[in-house]
């Protein structure tokens, strides 16, 4: 009950992410069953599905914050813990202390941990890489602003810059568009779409409506996982995922659904 839709020819390239027969449960509560996914280089994939369906669990399996009950998770061909140096991770920003006394540059520079020297202040190189990351997200002018004084969309962009300053080959984002207004969401997706020309982007979104415009691959999660090419995401697939007909925005589907 699963498939793999990367950019053709998928088989000839190393998979950035490969999950095989993955199961996960919190205690007796089964969250994910028989998950098989392969995501290839420079894909832009969105993990979608209803709340409690296992989206964030899947993301945490991908970075090795959780361990599967069964099956294997490989990132760049190795266990996620070993691949962390190549992963830029962005958590949900609502988990962070909004009043924390820290400026934009200092937050973004945290991505240099693990790369910078073990002791003492950050180096000039750390600063340069971080400034480039801030330029990528259009915040270079704001590096001295307090994080607490930013809008929700700006905070998300700072956290994306922090993930970029890791100089990652894979960007993993947990609900980057949560609680943002539509225009800001669109800007953010456009930014991520641009980034996916250079690296692989996988994000979690509770919002199906927006994925089809920028996203290449859709990973539908609700206990089990189905992978679609975004242009093939059909009404039937949505109904199967959410159990009813969800109204879709920005949805232009052509061709048949590959999912069976």
């Amino acid at each position: 009950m699963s498939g793999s839709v990367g950019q053709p020819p998928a088989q000839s390239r190393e998979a950035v992410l490969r999950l095989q027969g993955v199961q996960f449960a919190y205690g007796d509560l089964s969250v994910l069953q028989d998950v098989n996914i392969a995501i290839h280089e420079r894909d832009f994939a969105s993990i979608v599905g209803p709340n409690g369906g296992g989206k964030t669990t899947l993301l945490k399996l991908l970075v090795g914050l959780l361990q599967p009950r069964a099956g294997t998770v490989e990132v760049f061909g190795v266990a996620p813990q070993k691949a962390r140096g190549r992963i830029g991770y962005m958590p949900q920003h609502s988990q962070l202390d909004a009043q924390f006394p820290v400026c934009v540059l200092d937050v973004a520079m945290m991505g240099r941990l693990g790369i910078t020297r073990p002791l003492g202040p950050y180096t000039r190189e750390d600063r340069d890489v971080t400034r480039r990351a801030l330029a990528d997200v259009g915040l270079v002018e704001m590096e001295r602003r307090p994080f607490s004084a930013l809008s929700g969309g700006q905070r998300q962009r700072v956290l994306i810059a922090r993930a970029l300053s890791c100089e990652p080959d894979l960007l993993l984002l947990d609900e980057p568009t949560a609680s943002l207004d539509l225009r800001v969401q669109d800007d953010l997706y456009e930014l991520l779409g641009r980034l996916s020309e250079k690296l692989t982007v996988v994000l979690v979104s509770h919002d199906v409506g927006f994925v089809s415009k920028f996203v290449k691959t859709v990973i539908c999660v609700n206990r089990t996982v189905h992978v679609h090419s975004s242009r093939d995401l059909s009404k039937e697939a949505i109904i199967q995922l959410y159990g009813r007909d969800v109204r879709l925005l920005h949805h232009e589907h052509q061709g048949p659904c590959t999912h069976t």
Partner: protein
Amino acid sequence: MTDFLDALSRLSLLRYALATGLLASVACGVIGTYVVTRRISYIAGAISHCVLAGMGFARYMQVVHGWSGFTPLWGAFLSAIIASVIIGLVSLRAKQREDTVIGAIWSVGMAIGVLFIARTPGFDQDLMSYLFGNILLVTTGDLWLIAALDVIVVGTGLLFYNKFLAVCFDEEFARLRGVPVDFYYLLLLILTALTVVVLVKVVGIILVIALLTLPAAVAGQFSKTMMRMMIWATVLCVVTTSGGLAISYRPSLPAGATTIVLAGALYLAALAIRRFSFSMGRR
């Protein structure tokens, strides 16, 4: 105030007291900032109260068994380290029962201290000075120990500034970047314990927690970065410890309690100013 300055030039014990306050302020500003931003005031409170066990034990050994060099401050040092490691491991392992277990350690630590003091011949004066501090009784030996701890605490706190900042701000991200988060958490608790020891002479173990958190909390209201918060917290700590000493001198009030009331007043004033400027800004 002129009385105080006059006395300062005449009395060495007052100069020692002032020096203790200044030294303590640096550790207090740096570590207090971490305690406030990492939200571990409760854990810092537990560590500070456990210190009574060590102080009571040291005093008991001094008086009853003649261990003259084992001063209560060394006892505080020992027990603070032990308490911080135990409490740290408990809070890392027992996530669900964390507050219950730490509350228990808090009380048991104090109880052990009280038992030792009860078995030590002498006056209850000792107990009062451990609980509420007596900055006028600082000896040269105490001052050296405090200075040494200050260097260790501030040096370590600044050397690992980037790591501590990342761990306080977003622990999960720091972990993913390969930072040994649990190690830094324990290290932070040990530094907190050492700061408590530095502050014990100034305000005593019961009042420590206010001096550790209030100046940092005030500084946090107007600081844009954690480094500035540390600097301002240190400045405010200097103001409160010196101010407390100066104010308490003439009417001969307890210096520790005066210092804490001053810190509390500063915090309230900062809240009021913030509220006021916020409502002005809205207009």
